[in-house]
């Protein structure tokens, strides 16, 4: 019963992956009629014949000389060897190498933010639910109203200005040598932590309040359930009820939103990375976009969506472990 559910979910994920892959291939081709012209704009003092030859060479170089269908097959073949193609930057670096270079730096920001938001948020939310209607609860409610009104990039700008420039507590923007000089020494790690502080704080504020509000509502909903009354009628102690009965059930919606934010871990920080000049995936994507480097864009998009699909799959499977009712449809 459980096995069939897992297989079904995996097959579904594979199907979605192929849909994404195909869209990822065709959508850029809708916008560009002749890629060679884009890559190699006509230059003065070049005859039409010369330019035609150059375009032909460019097409062959990037694989546009064959039919679209053949291109699609070539694309699939490349992918099957984990080859995302070559960027249009000078030196033709491989797309996968560029992504591999930037990914860890984005993960430093997003994973730290996620862990901080999740732990503090769940804690605050539980306290607010427990102290429902008292000042702790009101505080969370007001904080969430304010944080909805203040987007992360605004908080980031304010933090960068006040904590960075005025008070000089943390670097206002990332030290440009941070990446190049990183050598796993304690000193280097300290520098990274120092530089990451403001971007992480500006993203975590919204996260903490979001998870907090989410947890609070979920805990309160579960507290009103009949089985909590049963647990109280059994004479269980308050802590036992909280951990074993309330939180376990209240975690279900949180896991869902956690799964969703995991898929946003890689791509979610574009603006914040830009503000603090953090050399992560978001910055890479913007660079690719502004230079029309579309093998790189395609590579990043495919990587992001694959990551999202896997994250959703893992969430769904994890849900089965948490909530035994999920498999009920498969059983009968």
């Amino acid at each position, binding site marked *: 019963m459980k096995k069939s559910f897992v297989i079904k979910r995996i097959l579904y994920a594979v199907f979605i992956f192929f849909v994404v892959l195909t869209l990822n291939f065709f959508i850029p081709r809708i916008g560009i009629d002749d890629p060679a012209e884009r890559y190699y704009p006509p230059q003065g003092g070049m005859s039409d014949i010369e330019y035609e030859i150059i375009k032909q060479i460019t097409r062959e170089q990037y694989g546009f000389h064959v039919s679209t269908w053949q291109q699609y097959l070539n694309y699939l073949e490349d992918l099957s060897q984990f080859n995302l193609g070559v960027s249009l930057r000078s030196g033709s670096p491989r797309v996968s190498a560029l992504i591999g270079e930037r990914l860890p730096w984005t993960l430093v920001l997003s994973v730290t933010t996620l862990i901080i938001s999740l732990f503090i948020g769940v804690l605050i939310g539980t306290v607010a639910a427990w102290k429902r209607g008292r000042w702790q609860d009101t505080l969370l409610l007001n904080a969430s109203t304010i944080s909805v009104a203040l987007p992360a990039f605004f908080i980031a700008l304010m933090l960068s200005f006040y904590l960075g420039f005025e008070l000089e507590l943390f670097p206002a923007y990332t030290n440009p040598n941070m990446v190049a000089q990183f050598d796993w020494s304690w000193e280097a790690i300290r520098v990274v932590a120092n530089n990451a502080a403001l971007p992480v704080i500006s993203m975590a504020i919204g996260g903490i309040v979001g998870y907090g509000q989410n947890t609070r509502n979920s805990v309160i909903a579960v507290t009103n359930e*009949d089985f909590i*009354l049963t647990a109280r*009628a*059994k*004479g*269980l102690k308050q802590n*036992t009820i909280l951990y074993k*009965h309330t939180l376990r059930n209240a975690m279900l919606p949180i896991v869902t939103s956690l799964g969703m934010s995991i898929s946003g871990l890689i791509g979610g920080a574009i603006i914040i990375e830009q503000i603090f000049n953090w050399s992560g995936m978001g910055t890479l994507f913007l660079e690719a976009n502004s230079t029309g480097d579309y093998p790189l864009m395609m590579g990043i998009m495919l990587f992001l969506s694959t990551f999202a699909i896997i994250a959703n799959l893992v969430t769904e499977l994890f849900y089965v472990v948490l909530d*035994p*009712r999920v498999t009920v449809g498969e059983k009968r």
Partner: protein
Amino acid sequence: MNDNMLTMRNLKVVFPSNAGMIRAVEGIDLDIRKGECVAVVGESGCGKSVTSLAVMKLLNSPPALMRVDELRLDDEELKDYSETKMQSIRGQHISIIFQDAMTALNPVMTVGRQVDEMFLRHNDISKKEARKRTLEALELVGVPEAKSRANNFPHQLSGGMRQRVLIAMAFACMPKLIIADEPTTALDVTIQAQVLEVLRGMQQKHDVSLMLITHDLSVVSNVADTVYVMYSGKIVEKASVRDLFKTPHHPYSYGLLASVPKLSDTKHQFVQIPDSVPHPLRKPSGCYFHPRCRYATEQCKKEMPPLERFDNGREVRCYHPLNVTDTELQS
């Protein structure tokens, strides 16, 4: 007096709301003898469930405010017990069986572990020993293949099985008093009979006092010894089951009995009590039942009748009781 398992005097429960005080329970006395089954009957919204939760001091406060002059379980006065002290009473000395077993069981915990919890909380035993007792308890209430059933989650069991699990849980620590809050309402009729059978069997075998909350008079006639009829937060009649069914004194009790359709009876029309229970914020003056009562007089509209006690132990709150025999009147 000490053959009383539960003695409750003057229980009052109110829920303050923006529109005014909702008086859910207005001064109820309740006596349950050892090994006796007492039924509390009445329409929805007359305060039955609130009473049952109040006995266990399980009402959420706020919003509920509860006051009681005496709440004695066996020899223990629970009135002033703290929440911590009540926690060790609940489950061990009083337990409750809720109406809807689907929602009363934790959906993400196996039923076995939910019964285990009861043993582990009130006894100093290992998890293994607790599971052994759980399996015994489940077998006692007629759960087949208890061993594999214990590892099921609530949604994998049928309604009747879930209710049996709740019963097993309630009897787990052999409490002094069990409250069954409409234990069969959520079940279909054939399963109702089985579950009642189990409940009555367990109660008689272990000589536990049972407080049965229900609106189903056929259940009452099968199981109960004494019946309290509640109306809009007050007791309107107390009688033994046989007396109540033979000669209901209060017009409301009479109406309840007459509204049970009988297959064999082709002569009499099926009777209904007109209207419904008054809204707790708009209770009428005088006797709460008078707007629905066809015997009501001017006096009924002005004054709340006292709960009158007859020599044979019956009590009725009515100025114009029905079917009263001469011997009763003399007292």
